[in-house]
């Protein structure tokens, strides 16, 4: 089964394809395309970012036109269509967070790393992004590390700790 999958889609690992299969199983048999959002995340996790080739491979695996998968990848903010650093930090600066230091936290990270939003440090370690409300405003300042890990109450000391942890 696995080898058969990798033949169908050599671009992605057997492990990723197995994960995608589990997503496909959630939807009616004739609605495989519903799994595209999850599949693109799985592909992004494996590759670090989504190239046109990777997106086309996901589309092929799900039996949908490449452009339809590309539309999805470019519509949702958390897909990376360009290479990013090893650690992508996304800081929420929306108003509720800003009232409790969201913008100041972003400024603090910018100064420490010497980069602005949408930039990557020269050593390729960090990319900084500005985020919209993450549904965690009570824990402000909040930031996401590589899309999936949320860090709460990020005051200077916690930010220092997080940056030191990122090896």
């Amino acid at each position, binding site marked *: 089964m696995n080898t058969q999958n990798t033949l169908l889609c050599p671009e992605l690992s057997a492990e990723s394809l197995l994960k995608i299969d589990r997503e496909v199983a959630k939807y009616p048999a004739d609605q495989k395309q519903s799994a595209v959002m999850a599949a693109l995340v799985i592909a992004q996790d494996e590759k670090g970012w989504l190239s046109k080739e990777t997106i086309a491979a996901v589309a092929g695996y799900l039996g949908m036109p490449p452009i339809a998968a590309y539309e999805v990848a470019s519509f949702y903010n958390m*897909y990376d269509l360009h290479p990013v650093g090893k650690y992508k930090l996304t800081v929420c600066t929306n*108003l509720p967070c800003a*009232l409790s230091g969201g913008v100041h936290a972003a400024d603090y990270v910018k100064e420490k790393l010497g980069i602005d939003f949408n930039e990557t440090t020269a050593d390729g370690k960090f990319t900084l992004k500005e985020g919209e409300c993450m549904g965690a405003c*009570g824990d402000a300042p909040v930031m996401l590390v590589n899309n999936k890990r949320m860090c709460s109450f990020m005051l200077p000391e916690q930010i220092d700790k997080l940056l030191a942890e990122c090896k």
Partner: protein
Amino acid sequence: MALIDTINPLLTTGWAKGDAGWSLKDYEARGGYKQLRRVLESKMTQDDLIAEVKKSVLRGRGGAGFPTGLKWSFMPKAAPEKYVVCNTDEGEPGTFKDRDLLRFDPHSTIEGMIIAGYAVGAKRGYNYIHGEIFEIYQRFEEALDQARAAGYLGNNILGSDFSFDLFAHHGWGAYICGEETGLLESIEGKKGQPRYKPPFPANFGLYGKPTTINNTETFAAIPFILGMGGEAYLNLGKPNNGGTKLFSVSGHVNRPGNYEVPMGTPFAKLLEMAGGMRGGRKLKAVIPGGSSAPVLPADVMMDCTMDYDSIAKAGSMLGSGAVIVMDETVCMVKALERLSYFYYEESCGQCTPCREGSGWLYRVVHRIEHGQGRAEDLDLLNRVTDNMMGKTICALADAAAFPVRSFIKHFKSEFEYHIENKKCLVDPDIQRAGSGFFKAGAA
């Protein structure tokens, strides 16, 4: 953060143990899945079930406040394939209640969805979870596995002839997917662009099939309503505003967090529960229902009770129950600039008035904030909003317009000061101190 304070807890009863109380055995120990069992064992009719929900006057907790029982009754009886969809795409700035519901008590939402499936005759459901809370999505999947293993999901639930299965779908960073038809498009694996309504989801929903879509908190309330009876639930709140509600309190309070209180609780009481104003500073303004709701000045807000009718009478909306508290350190122009940027960034771009209008609003507020405002700009802003409201496919255009109109209406002199003096009325050092980020003399 787990439970801090509450009056009459229902939804938050399971939060007491924080992250240690979410799993199936804890939920069952609290009486969980008893209502599902009762519905199935007594072979309650769909009509009776919907009638009980109607009696509770539960109104949708996602923002619009539409009566839930009535919504369920719109589902066509005969259709062979129907869906129940839960909206946990919580992206309305200020709102963080659904995250905690799924974090501390995912099974109440699952039980509510299964019961909804029974009531409307659906065999399959999806919970659409905000992409930014991936850890919560993973926990929800675990909770689904637990429910499936215990026979609460799947074929012939608890030995009855009712079958229902439920799956989780995650978003990946698009506010517009919170709009119910944008959300359905997104589950179908497309861009989350809202559909024209009508047809409404009850007739043409997921995969074109009849679909009931409700907010997480709406579903989570169902087991409690059935447990205590619709009428008792209604009586917890006030007429036409049944039950309790979660309020996400953020901004300049001492203890930001979620508070469950009966509908009709005075705002002053809620503020007190949230620890009062940070640093003892003065309340300036409150957005009572998420960033899309009109802002209210302090004195108006202090006279409100927390329910749909009182907040509407004061000129705003209860919305999602996100209470954004602002003190005197806030520059209202800068605050509005950030909100306007959000709507500009998140417009899905299908409707010209929204796509172009949201950009105009942001650019004009931005230039006022940056000392380049012109005398005619406030009229210009109001005219742009006139051309957006009610003229688009979904309500995001209105959501972009409400903050602009209300900020200008209630804080006009601050905008005028900005335009005339090319700077903030509130001193930048005072603004900087307000956030609490810089402690004890640090930079």
